[in-house]
């Protein structure tokens, strides 16, 4: 029986820029930042209230994919194809205003839905996330 999810991968265009975005703009914490062979870095971050959930900031250029796949995947991420997840917050209006003030791009302003109030933002690569204050 599966009990919980501890790691999830986010494919990012530029790992250094993504680290800056997730920590300095979203306010996430670095859990691991480990240098690996070939100048690779294993970087995971977490939302401040969820230290057991590691988001792996994985650059698409890594040796995981073929050259063609890297190009295709980078294009898809950059044009905002992938919705990666949903983050929740205690006060969506304050969170929205703060992230906007820090330069985070929103594609949907806070809107009431049947489950709460939701907005949508993009990370610096193009991945999009729902930001919600649930009822």
């Amino acid at each position: 029986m599966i009990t919980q999810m501890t790691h999830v991968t986010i494919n990012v265009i530029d790992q250094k820029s993504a680290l800056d975005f997730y920590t300095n703009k979203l306010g996430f914490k670095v859990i691991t930042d480990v240098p690996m062979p070939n100048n690779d870095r294993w970087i995971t971050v977490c939302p401040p209230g969820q230290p057991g959930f590691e988001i792996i900031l994985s650059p698409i250029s890594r040796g995981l994919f073929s050259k063609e796949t890297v190009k295709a995947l980078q294009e898809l991420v950059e044009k905002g194809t992938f919705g990666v997840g949903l983050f929740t917050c205690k006060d969506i209006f304050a969170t929205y205003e703060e992230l906007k003030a820090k330069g985070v791009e929103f594609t949907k302003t806070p809107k009431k839905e049947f489950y709460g109030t939701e907005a949508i933002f993009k990370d610096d690569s193009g991945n999009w996330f729902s930001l919600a204050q649930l009822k």
Partner: protein
Amino acid sequence: MTTEQYPKVYLYRRIVQAKLFIDSNYAKPIDVDNISDEAYFSKFHFIRLFKKIYGKTPHQYLTSVRIEKAMLLLTDGIPVSDVCYAVGFESLSSFSGLFKRIVGITPSTYLLQQQTIKAQIVQSPLTFIPGCFAEKHGWKKK
């Protein structure tokens, strides 16, 4: 609903500005008076609104930011006394006491712990990541 239509948008913007002011100026000798001035609120109205949104008073939030930044500097190996003043505390004993109360260990113990972890990372980096990922990336073979 546009952003202009949600309740009391101007209040939110002012409180958020005050929070960002703390985030940027935590290392300076700021207090609730400076922060509430930044938000153009009376002190008590400001404290009430800030706590409603962030669950902490501005002073509690300032302390938490200072301790968080202290943890980052200690992780970088900066000596405890330098960290204390770099994050805006004026007394080493009050810094150490608050740090221990919030983090659970003294700053010097935290510094040692972090340096030990760093040494382990250098010595055996693969023990810090799930094996399946290391294998897929080809890091295990090297």
